[in-house]
């Protein structure tokens, strides 16, 4: 790339960045990007409230309990054994059940539930006629489960909807928006190669989407970690690959912006109405798990799914259709996936480059 070409690319980017970041019609993209952050903030607030309740139960306990104390309660223990071990319960609930007995009489059964806490984890002990019948321990932090939840939000909302539609909003407008504004000729009157113009616009769109969505991904991680105690946070980030996952998610976000950006750039040049190509690409990406292996390679999500660090387990009993949608039945290696996205994006950019050279300024027919 010559110095002059680079100067031109930077000039295009400067003009486009201003429009992309501050356009009123692009405000919804910020909203879409911030939606999962909001989701995790709400989740963290709910969890913090639960922890506050748990700590309150622990404060009202007769004894200071440990997690091991909570685990010591077993089914079949008597009420006295439980109170000897854990002290009088700070929170109880009881009720009487009348069951029909023999000869038309009624049998009264006493149910009780004791709620204990070690300050972080909750124990619910269900007793029937003063004997432990069921035990339910709710751990404050289940890092594995939380990581799967984060992966689910990332894969099924952030990647497939937020980034997808965000890229649609930004990249489709790079040319189509200016045709509608009747200002595209401004670029076409400059001594700049059309493919250089396209490259500048694509890079501007890429920078904008990357800033918006990587920032969103980072904020999601922060919001997700918010309710963790400092020790659990360290455990998650440094021993449970949390930090590594955050960087991988950021990388997948960048690749998604490259892939979808290239798709929507070419769609914006080929189609006047963005709804049709957007719907077609959305359906194509959605049916990816059901496509033959050769066709799968022409989608972005196929590669991105293989790069996501956490697999979402399929619960037993999930219908086959949904199981196939959730699982990654045909994963490929990370290097191949990265190359795949770049190749798919490059093909789309080559088509855009050819198309932009043929583009005419004929606003009256738009």
């Amino acid at each position: 790339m010559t110095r002059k070409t680079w100067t031109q690319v930077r000039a295009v980017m400067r003009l486009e960045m201003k429009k992309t970041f501050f356009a009123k019609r692009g405000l919804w993209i910020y909203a879409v990007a911030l939606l999962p952050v909001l989701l995790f903030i709400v989740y963290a607030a709910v969890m913090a409230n639960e922890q506050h309740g748990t700590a309150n139960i622990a404060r009202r306990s007769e004894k200071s309990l440990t997690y091991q104390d909570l685990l010591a309660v077993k089914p079949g223990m008597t009420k006295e054994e439980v109170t000897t071990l854990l002290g009088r319960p700070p929170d109880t609930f009881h009720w009487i059940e009348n069951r029909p007995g023999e000869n038309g009489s009624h049998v009264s059964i006493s149910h009780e539930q004791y709620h204990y806490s070690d300050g972080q984890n909750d124990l619910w002990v269900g007793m029937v006629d003063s004997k432990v019948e069921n035990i339910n321990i709710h751990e404050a932090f289940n890092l594995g489960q939380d990581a799967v939840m984060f992966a689910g939000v990332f894969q099924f909302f952030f990647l497939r909807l937020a980034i997808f539609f965000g890229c649609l909003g930004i990249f489709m407008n790079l040319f189509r928006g200016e045709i509608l504004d009747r200002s595209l000729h401004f670029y076409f009157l400059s001594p700049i190669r059309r493919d250089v113009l396209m490259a500048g616009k694509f890079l501007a769109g890429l920078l904008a989407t990357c800033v918006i969505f990587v920032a969103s991904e980072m904020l999601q991680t922060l919001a997700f970690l918010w309710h963790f105690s400092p020790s659990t946070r360290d455990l998650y980030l440094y021993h449970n690959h949390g930090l590594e996952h955050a960087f991988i998610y950021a990388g997948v976000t960048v690749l998604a912006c490259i892939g979808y950006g290239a798709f929507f750039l070419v769609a914006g040049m080929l189609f006047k109405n963005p709804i049709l190509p957007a719907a077609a690409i959305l359906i194509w990406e959605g049916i990816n798990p059901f496509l033959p292996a050769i066709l799968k390679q022409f989608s972005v999500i196929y590669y991105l799914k293989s790069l996501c660090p956490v697999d979402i387990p399929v619960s037993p009993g999930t219908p086959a259709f949904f199981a196939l949608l959730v699982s990654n039945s045909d994963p490929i290696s990370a290097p191949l996936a990265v190359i795949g996205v770049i190749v798919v994006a490059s093909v789309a950019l080559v088509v855009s480059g050819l198309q932009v050279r043929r583009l005419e300024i004929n606003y009256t027919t738009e």
Partner: protein
Amino acid sequence: MSDRITFEDVSKFYGEILGVNRVNLSIPPGITSLVGPNGSGKTTLMNLMTGLVRPSRGQIRVLGFKTDDPENMFKIVGYSTQFDAFPKGLTGYQFIYSYLCLSGEGSENAERLARQAIERVNLVEASSRSVASYSKGMRQRIRLAQALAHNPKVLVLDEPLNGLDPLARSEMIALFRAAAAQGCYVIISSHILHEVDVISDQVILLSNGYVVAEGQIQSVRSEIQEHPTQILIRCDRPRALAAKLFESEYMIEASVHKDGHGLLVKTRDADRFYLSLNQLALDGIEIESIAPADDDVLSVYEYLIGNEEVVR
């Protein structure tokens, strides 16, 4: 590098709608005006010339450059379009400056050229204001500044005087003349015929997508055989002159000018008529001046195209 702007058998169709058809042109330096009613193909011709639209058939070269080579062509071409839209959020100065940066100019050079261009169109005071707040005339001038900013050899100006007040019009006309005097190719489209007449070195008359005539206005006029040439003769005794002129075989019609000090004659052979007039002048009639009365754009336009949608 060729020294002409050439169209070789160029046609442009928008679907089934004709833009221009079978245009062959060779435009020399100087001010060339495209004249024709709305929809005659003036803007299409300009858009073809600058590569904004591609020809359906034929080839266009601007001083040797193909129009699908914007990188090289727009180094020597500046186009002020009729499109009245601008990139959003830019001041007048930023508009010109960013155009120059797009052209690959370095920051300092772009700054200098932008200021020069803004000065040339007298928009210095408003240059720090957003283009969105400009009046129609100011927007016209900032578009002209954009076209002029990189000192192009070819200036293509689509209705450049639209929206300008009389003072600004004369300033702009002076600007175009100065550019033409320096050897530039100034292509102007206009439907204001008296202005075209004043500024043009040559004209291209368009009608319904066809080039009806092209060249210097006098030569175009001389080729219109079906309309006799009109000549205004200023003299002291117009009636006596008329009586003598009717003896000439080249004379068709004569009428005394309404101020009583001239004679308007129609002839089919102007050259021979002038020769016979020399003889008459020797016979004692004092002739002050002889001037063609219908070799202006307005007359040629009326003869060739008719009287539709033009402003005299």
